[in-house]
């Protein structure tokens, strides 16, 4: 790239942002240059998204100044930022599923005659932009019919339609299949070549090394370092990001698996729209074995876990746990057959945030003989049980009487883990067990799951994070459009092969 890089297009000076008593950004200086892809690297909670939300006008900063293209910018809403050419694509897309691609793109723009929408000329303009950047999508398609990768393209088009030349993307690859990532990277490079700037928020080191020209590392709300991509490596970045040497790789013991713990046969289940999300699925997990279910999100993993948990009634098929049939759509049956259930959404499905830590502990087993006498809860025993779990799992909380909502994400997950593993389940099903957690909590969860396996449980880990799957599992299956694309022992698995399966290519 040969653009003049002396004068940054964006200068953020001494930015500070506090949320109640948490300082998310402290005195941050951050520049963006024309024609570059700048990676903003950091752990969860390092303040990357907050900083960019400030540049996007979604948050206002408590202190600091922003200059865009040489002018001081007071951004009080995203509208101000867009008017100055700054666009941002959030991790959760801001699209309306029931509307068409075109409607989603033109909303809020002033194209059209006076009061009325001018869909025809808007459509022509969109097609022109599509052609220029090679982003083909039918403007009339309803957004809910598109894949996640296509929806991301709609978001990019939405920004380009508004003549955005500074594009911020928040963890854009988290939802993509490997092949879609390749395509996205091509698009981003194309944008940079045209002189536009891209800010790429990520915590994935390999990606950052591949796509960016420059890397700014954030740690605990401050800039930890800045590097030219060519002059650093993954190891250095990891240390900068975490602030210490990364821990040793988790030790995974080789154990020969025992008899089958769960046998799934011919399982078919519908999603909320009534379409088949799990198709004729067959799976078997043995004692002392961790099975990883990999796949891009939305390929039936959620529905599979819900069927296992007893939250969704399958259309067909059977699930046997320890040789006994799971009663379809019955959570009680799942509990009674000894399933430890770690749901993908801890807050929505895993916990009751307004109840205390202790109450959350006994949600599943308050009916068991130890915890009540003729229907009245035996609080002494429950207190003992709770204190034991809080200590055993190192849960940081003000006490068993604290509301669950006062706990951090990592501690919430430990709470669920403690509850689910306390009964020594024969089968553990963990769906996205470390999503959104920091490295420390992640390590802890991984260790605990490995311990469960050593104890003799069968474990199913459903995850979109391939690193996690490779760290934990003994065997990997890949789900694609509700089917198992491939099934391979970890020793024989290659990332390339798994990546192909994830995007639906079977060799």
């Amino acid at each position, binding site marked *: 790239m040969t653009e003049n890089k002396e004068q940054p297009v964006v200068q953020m000076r001494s930015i500070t942002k506090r949320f109640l008593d948490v300082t998310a950004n402290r005195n941050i200086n951050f520049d963006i240059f024309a024609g570059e892809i700048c990676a903003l690297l950091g752990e969860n909670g390092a303040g990357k998204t907050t900083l960019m939300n400030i540049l*996007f006008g979604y948050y206002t900063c408590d202190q600091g100044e922003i200059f865009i293209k040489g002018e001081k910018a007071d951004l009080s809403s*995203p509208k101000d930022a867009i008017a100055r050419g700054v666009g941002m694509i959030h991790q959760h897309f801001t699209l309306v599923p029931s509307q068409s691609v075109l409607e989603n793109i033109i*909303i*809020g723009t002033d194209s059209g005659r006076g009061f*009325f929408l001018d869909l025809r000329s808007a459509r022509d303009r969109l097609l022109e932009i599509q052609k220029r950047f090679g982003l083909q999508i039918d403007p009339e398609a309803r957004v809910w019919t598109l894949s996640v990768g296509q929806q991301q393209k709609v978001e990019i088009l939405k920004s380009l339609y508004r003549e955005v030349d500074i594009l911020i993307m928040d963890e854009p690859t988290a939802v993509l299949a490997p092949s879609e990532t390749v395509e996205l990277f091509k698009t981003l490079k194309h944008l940079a070549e045209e002189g536009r700037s891209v800010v790429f928020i990520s915590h994935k080191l390999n990606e950052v090394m591949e796509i960016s020209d420059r890397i700014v590392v954030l740690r605990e709300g401050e800039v930890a370092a800045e590097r030219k991509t060519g002059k650093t490596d993954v190891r250095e970045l990891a240390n900068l990001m975490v602030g210490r040497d990364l821990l040793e790789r988790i030790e995974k013991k080789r154990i020969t698996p025992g008899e089958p713990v769960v046998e799934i046969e011919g399982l078919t289940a519908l999603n909320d729209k009534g379409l088949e999300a799990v198709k004729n699925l067959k799976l078997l997990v043995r004692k002392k074995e961790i099975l990883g279910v990999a796949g891009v999100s939305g390929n039936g993993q959620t529905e599979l876990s819900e069927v296992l948990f007893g939250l969704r009634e399958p259309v067909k098929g059977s699930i046997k746990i320890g040789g006994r049939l799971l009663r379809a759509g019955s959570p009680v049956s799942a509990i009674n057959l000894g399933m430890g259930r770690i749901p993908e959404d801890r807050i929505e499905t895993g916990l009751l945030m307004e109840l205390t830590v202790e109450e959350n502990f006994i949600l599943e087993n308050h009916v068991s003989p130890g915890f009540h006498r003729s229907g009245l809860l035996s609080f002494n025993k429950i207190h003992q049980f709770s204190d034991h779990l809080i200590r055993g799992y190192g849960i940081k909380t003000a006490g068993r009487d604290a509301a669950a909502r006062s706990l951090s994400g990592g501690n919430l997950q430990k709470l669920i883990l403690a509850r689910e593993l306390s009964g020594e389940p024969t089968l553990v099903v963990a769906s996205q067990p470390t999503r959104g957690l920091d490295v420390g909590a992640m390590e802890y969860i991984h260790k605990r799951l490995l311990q469960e396996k050593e104890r003799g449980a069968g474990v199913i880990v459903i995850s979109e994070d391939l690193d996690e799957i490779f760290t934990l599992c003994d065997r990997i299956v890949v789900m694609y459009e509700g089917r198992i694309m491939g099934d391979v022992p970890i020793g024989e698995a290659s990332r390339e092969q798994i990546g192909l399966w994830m995007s639906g290519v079977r060799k």
Partner: protein
Amino acid sequence: MIGEILNIAFITGLIGATMRMATPIIFATIGEILVERSGVLNLGIEGIMLMGAMTGFLVTFISGSLWVGVLAAALVGMILALLMAFLSVFLGLSQHVSGLGITLFSSGLAMFIYRLHFGSPVIPPIVQPFTQVAIPLLSKIPVIGPGLFDQYMLTYIALLLIPLISIILYKTKIGLKIRTVGENPLAADTVGVNVNLTRTLCLVAGGALMGTGGAFLTLAHQNMFLIDVIGGRGWVSIAMVIFGNWDPLKGALGAIIFGFLDGLQLRLQGLGFRVAFDIFLMIPYLLTIVVLVGVSRKASVPAGLLKPYRREEKGG
């Protein structure tokens, strides 16, 4: 008996009654659809209609002008809707609680103001109500002409509102903004649409329609104000919104079907069946429930409905 039902005068009369009974519900249903498409459920509807009915009557009684009365009713609807906006949009309180609160408040207020002015008369005071306006030529069409085209002005306005609100929702910029605010307020906010302002505007416009619907009942359908004049029509309109799947055309169709049943039961009462008239009064409401049970499973609720919008105050 069958002969009486099938005679032409009966059918013509039934068509006319259908439109008359449907008018207030069309106003209210379309108003509520506009509000709900922006993501707010206005359960104040029943109370707003009652206040509209009372205000329309009172202002007409004092001013002697029916149209001044209608305008006053619309204005009161807008003011109550602003209160709803303050509670549920600006303060972000529960839409259920705010709306029911407004209905309870309005019910008390309507009676209070009425009594303040009229005391407790033995014979309720009356106004000279609207008269029907026959549209030349069209009203001469046999059978349906006198039914459809010899109606109150407000009925014609209600019918014109149906395509008008449809066009606004689906063909205009503001309509796209309203729909987006109702489905995904964050998406609207990030492209510079003022979510809370849009919702407030929809509430106010909807409030005007609800107030007008109420006024129809005291200025055209009847000529006096009684405390039970609305008789659950606001709640029926909420049901019609669901029946119409949040679409003005289908919602209005629901209102007309309700109007038909209401008109039919009135006429059947007049035919002298030996059944308590309460049974007939029940018919439209009963069928509303039956229809909803069937329809609401497939309903596509605006995704942002019931959720107050705030910028998230905690980021990663």
